[in-house]
């Protein structure tokens, strides 16, 4: 580790912290329906959308109606994207003449983008036409992120309201998130990224004759417009196969810095929006602090592990002054690769600027654990906030059990129904991750996809189902996942991770909204102090993480011991 590496990490964290309050305030005003700078240029568009869709923006929905609206919209998204991928060969903006995707790949990719996972069974520049990248992938990057923001707001309204039967209007949240938040930031970010060297054109791939006289075909396309929202919406699906490691998808250290800032921007801001909605910004900062502790521990561990380099290369007399460079880009080195890897897996982004498959065992363990904790360390846009709020309910419940008192959070009594629903949501993660990994490690279809053998091969499968269930999308990419077996099972894992979590979460939101306000008393556990933050971190690690310890022991931990004894597979 170097001083410079740490300075880069701390600059990042300081800037993120400084942006949290302004972003949170802006989001609060947008979703509260207040007038903002963009109301004048875009207000007519918003009202036009409602008129065409027959939506009354003043009418709110119950939790059931809100959830059904969200599910209906997601179903339309899935069907449209699935058909688009199957019809690719007949659609415009396809200079390379790419044909239809296979049905299993189209199924996997459509679910992947609708659930904000963006797992890449597809190969970017070898599979997807420009038309698909724009009309398909870019669109779903926007709307799946907007869906997440809406769901988080619905849950927070559940906390903020008293004896209420409604928790907002899905159509209004969806439209406002896209028009006033995602689109304007994406436009600015895309221009910045183009300035840094990211292509944005519709030309066919360029044929070059290299300095040594070899033909090189250089893939091109409308990259920047896709990448800006890919990061801001914590989607992560690459324009190119190598994702943000590709020099066109992440040309400079500065473009890299902007991309990681975009990942955490909305999730961090939403903690503050939450605080404002429940009328105590300190409540938001408490969640921010718990997230920050887990983030900084993760990045420190990953950076340390990768800085050690590969011990087996050291014995061959290789100089590894900055650490393990297999699968990493020179311009990012180890500090920026591990920072990116930690952030992308804390948030459910899944973009990568280095190949996680080639990380050292402990370096690769960090991204895996981040995802297993349920994507609540800032997390996906919206998904991180609703995830950590469920953990907060468990934390106050456990605190209540310890003192024998009915737990309260934000003036709401937390009772059996909420805890049951919350546990139902949280338990679907280990069920899907461990269940599918177990199945694939005994089936020949599962084992056929492995690129590495030994414990690392097991890690590849474990990582895949963890990433899919947590709706992350990054991979130990050696795994050949574009097979009917993996496309279908990973698709199901993504559906479970998204919707089997959301429905009980929304039921919790409805139950909370209906409760009356209980004023804090002398016996109320304060949820803004260090004790609560420590308890919350503990609950996330123990409830979220401990379930996975045996599986982790079989993969990265065994491999770590193997590498120390000089074993190879």
């Amino acid at each position, binding site marked *: 580790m170097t001083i410079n590496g740490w300075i880069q990490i701390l600059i990042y964290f300081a800037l993120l912290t400084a942006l949290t309050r302004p972003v949170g305030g802006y989001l609060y005003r947008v979703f509260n329906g207040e007038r903002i700078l963009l109301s004048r240029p875009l207000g007519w568009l918003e009202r036009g959308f409602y008129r065409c869709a027959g939506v009354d923006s003043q009418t709110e929905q119950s939790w059931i109606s809100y959830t059904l609206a969200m599910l209906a919209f997601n179903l339309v998204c899935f069907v449209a994207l699935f058909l688009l991928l199957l019809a690719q060969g007949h659609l415009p903006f396809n200079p390379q003449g790419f044909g239809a995707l296979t049905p299993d790949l189209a199924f996997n990719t459509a679910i992947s983008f609708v659930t904000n996972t963006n797992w890449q069974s597809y190969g970017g520049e070898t599979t997807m036409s420009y038309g698909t990248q724009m009309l398909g992938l870019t669109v779903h990057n926007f*709307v799946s992120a907007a869906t997440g923001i809406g769901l988080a707001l619905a849950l927070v309204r559940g906390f903020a309201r008293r004896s209420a039967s409604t928790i907002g209007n899905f159509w209004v949240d969806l439209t406002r998130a896209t028009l006033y938040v995602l689109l304007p930031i994406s436009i600015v970010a895309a221009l910045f990224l183009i300035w840094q060297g990211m*292509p944005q*054109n519709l030309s066919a791939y360029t044929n070059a004759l290299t300095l040594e006289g070899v033909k090189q075909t250089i893939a091109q396309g409308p990259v920047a417009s896709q990448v800006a929202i890919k990061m801001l919406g914590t989607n992560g699906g690459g324009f190119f196969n190598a994702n943000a490691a590709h020099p066109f998808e992440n040309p400079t250290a500065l473009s890299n810095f902007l991309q990681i800032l975009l990942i955490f921007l909305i999730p961090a801001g939403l903690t503050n929006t939450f605080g404002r909605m429940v009328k105590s910004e300190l409540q938001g900062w408490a969640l921010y602090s718990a997230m920050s502790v887990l983030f900084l521990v993760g990045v420190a561990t990953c950076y340390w592990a990768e800085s050690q380099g590969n011990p087996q290369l050291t014995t061959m007399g*290789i100089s590894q002054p900055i650490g393990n460079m297999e699968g990493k880009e020179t311009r990012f080195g180890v500090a920026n690769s591990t920072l990116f890897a930690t952030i992308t897996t804390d948030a459910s982004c899944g973009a990568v600027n280095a190949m996680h498959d080639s990380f050292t065992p402990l370096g690769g363990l960090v991204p895996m654990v981040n995802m297993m904790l349920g994507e609540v360390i800032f997390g996906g846009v919206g998904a991180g906030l609703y995830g950590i709020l469920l953990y907060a309910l468990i934390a106050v419940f456990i605190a209540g059990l310890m003192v024998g008192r009915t737990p309260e959070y934000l003036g709401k009594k937390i009772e059996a129904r909420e805890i049951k629903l919350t546990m139902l949501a949280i338990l679907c993660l280990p069920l899907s991750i461990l269940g599918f990994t177990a199945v694939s490690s005994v089936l020949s279809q599962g084992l056929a996809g492995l690129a590495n053998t030994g414990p*690392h091969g097991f890690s590849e499968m474990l990582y895949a189902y963890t990433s899919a269930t947590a709706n992350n999308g990054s991979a130990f990419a050696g795994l050949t996942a574009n097979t009917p077996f993996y496309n279908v099972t990973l698709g199901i894992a993504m559906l479970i991770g998204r919707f089997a979590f959301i429905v009980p979460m929304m039921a919790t939101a409805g139950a909370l909204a209906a409760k009356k306000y209980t004023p804090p008393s002398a016996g109320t556990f304060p949820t803004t102090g260090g004790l609560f933050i420590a308890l919350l971190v503990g609950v996330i690690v123990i409830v979220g993480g401990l379930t996975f310890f045996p599986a982790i022991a079989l993969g990265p931990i065994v491999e770590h011991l*193997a590498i120390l004894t000089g074993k190879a597979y």
Partner: protein
Amino acid sequence: MFSHIRPAIVLFVLLTLLTGVAYPLAMTGAAQALFPAQANGSLITKNGHIIGSSLIGQNFVGDGYFHGRLSATSGADPTDASKTISSPYNAANSVGSNLGPTSKALLDRVAADTAKLKAENPNALVPAELVTASGSGLDPHISPESALFQVPRIARARGLNEQQLQALIGVHTDGRWLGLLGEPVVNVLALNLALDAVGKP
């Protein structure tokens, strides 16, 4: 549920037109007007021919050129299109090696490359960047140490003196942004173009 079908379809179509048609096309127009060089792939032309992109690495193999990182990309076999073969720096199919740290294939590959590099320059430790594959397979850069390591071979091949080459590397080393972000790098294609300007191999 049925009352939600109309808003779901209508809003999906409208949002698609906005974010999937208007937004990317407007960005393309703006990019072509404001930053045409970058927007078209930072291409480099020499004598009227496109010789590559300043952001995309090339597979240099000659002794008289600086070599880049290892590339794990593949491409279709020219003799049999149904097969794929190793095709380093294939800029239409980016990929890393994805070899794990305990992979025998990785260790064998590193051992073989290390032996070759040690024969070329026995006086220095082999830098990691020269025996590891980049994440994209298209890394345009190497570290300054990796460039300096190759100086004896290039000096022999081109009949240039080593100090001259070291000075050239110094000129083509890009530091961190504002001295803070990223890592110091040397763009291999730019360095080799400068090398050709000094004297032919």
